[in-house]
């Protein structure tokens, strides 16, 4: 499917433009403006047929096409935040959590569990950007760490699908420590010789990039995903200049040596299967 590899030229979307997929039968592509029927979009795994733009999708959607049908067994489904430092800005953190729960039907910004990819058992974590910007607090850190532990104990590969604005401010230093927690578990997994594939989607920035997202034995990224440490706005402020086109996108990260492959969503399962066959089967 060679035409997908050329797609990077046409995909260049401003981060602020990328939104959740709206309700309704007809959906407008945020990149090229094409009007697409929902059923067709679903068939295309929420990528635009015309310009290959990848819509942001939920953990549930991602798991549904990456894993073998019916193989997902969720872990720690009920784990939730306790608002450990009683955080309040213009809003109570407790309220933000409640709102996000109501809006997304999720408990926090990651779902973890076990499943199968092309028959191969794996442990998996998939993040949800829709839950407080996919931010990592204690719950995300703990669930990801446990997914790695699960992989270690049942000796199966680990896959993490990242989509996050970074560490969650509302849990202060406890959020920061989740970077160390998850990286520590990944070090153990690595020492045990068990593969870990990191899959970065739009956006993967801040503390998630600076911990598990960059630590894969293989780092994969969806086309045109924003991937970086500092956000583009902060960098722009620092250097006082406009950022070059494509800055911090998947293709830029591959060009600079931090991503192995930019993989179209429709080829993701096939690519991961091939990799697992080399690394583990």
């Amino acid at each position: 499917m060679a035409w997908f590899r050329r797609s990077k030229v046409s995909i260049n979307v401003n981060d602020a433009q990328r939104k959740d997929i709206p309700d309704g039968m007809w959906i407008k592509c945020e990149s090229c403006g094409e009007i697409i029927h929902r059923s067709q979009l679903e068939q295309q795994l929420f990528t635009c047929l015309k310009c290959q733009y990848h819509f942001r999708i939920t953990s549930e959607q991602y798991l549904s096409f990456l894993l073998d049908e019916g193989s997902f067994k969720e872990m720690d489904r009920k784990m939730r935040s306790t608002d450990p430092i009683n955080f309040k800005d213009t809003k109570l953190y407790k309220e933000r959590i409640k709102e996000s729960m109501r809006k997304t039907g999720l408990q926090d910004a990651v779902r973890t569990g076990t499943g199968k990819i092309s028959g191969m058992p794996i442990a998996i974590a998939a993040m949800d950007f829709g839950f407080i910007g996919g931010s990592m607090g204690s719950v995300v850190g703990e669930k990801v760490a446990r997914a790695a532990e699960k992989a270690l104990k049942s000796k199966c590969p680990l896959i993490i699908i990242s989509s996050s604005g970074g560490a969650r401010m509302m849990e202060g230093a406890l959020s920061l420590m989740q970077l160390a927690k998850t990286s520590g578990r990944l070090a153990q997994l690595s020492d045990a010789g068990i593969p870990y594939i990191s899959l970065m989607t739009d956006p993967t920035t801040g503390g998630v990039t600076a911990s598990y997202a960059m630590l894969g034995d293989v780092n994969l990224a969806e086309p045109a995903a924003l991937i970086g440490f500092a956000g583009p706005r902060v960098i722009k402020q620092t250097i006082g200049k406009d950022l070059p086109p494509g800055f911090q996108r998947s293709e830029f990260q591959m060009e600079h040596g931090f991503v192995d492959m930019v993989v179209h969503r429709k080829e993701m399962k096939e690519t991961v299967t091939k990799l697992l066959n080399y690394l583990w089967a």
Partner: protein
Amino acid sequence: MAKTVLEFEKPVVELEQKVEEMRKYSDALDIADEIKVLEEKILQLRKTIYSGLTRWQKVQLARHPDRPYTLDYIAMMTTDFIEMHGDRCFADDKAIVGGFARIEGEPVMIIGHQKGRDTKSNLYRNFGMPNPDGYRKALRLMKLAAKFGRPVVTMLDTPGAFPGLEAEERGQAEAIARNLFEMSHLPVPIIVIIIGEGASGGALGIGVGDRVLMLENTWYSVISPESCSSILWRSWEFKEQAAEALKLTAPDLLAQGIIDRIVPEPLGGAHRNPQQTADTLRVVIHEELKKFRKVNPDKLIEKRVEKFAKMGKWEE
């Protein structure tokens, strides 16, 4: 005497100046009593001020321009320091310094963020904000220490990892992630001390260890109060509230189970008596190192990973 005076330091500094004046311009014995009274008053005032500091005021103390930095501590508390340079990859980042030194005679690899003191040295040190090369240099030195069985001491003092264009091109995120990963299973003891500002991943990038200590007037969090204010309040004006909300002081972090120990500073802060602070630190580091003298590397690593694995709070 302090060259820079913070708002809440003013009453004390004014009284101190008064005492100094009195000493200078009069040898008369009859004012000795008066000086004594004033000195007592100063002490009481300092006790009152410094026991009631807000979190934001502590952030200001942590950033005090007269505060000792890594190289100052190395000069005051170690001997035989040999500074080493470069990441063997791209550059020698001046915002992180490191090398072998002796603490109470014991050889260690000591690594820390380094700020500058004036415009020129701050530009040279990039205000203590490392590029990826700094983290890679730190990791190279840690691996060197591990190869020859020397413990590692790291000193954290940064306003953050540098958010620049080239930093991103060279993989700021990867460099920090790699350090967290490698420090997690480094087979020698690691003692971490926050000596000033512990801003986010830029600080943690050299901050995974077996013991994590904080000097009394320092801060450590996921974001600076200013950036937190700008994101959550959409204005830079709410830094005081943000500092309160983030619970980022040494006692806060001890309560959250993130640090192991608070190292006391002289009344008024480390900059009031740098040598005294360094002396305390030397004794404390030596004490901590002793605990790891006969530890098995595998157990050390396991304990370190479990230490961080416990951090955080959730319900299920």
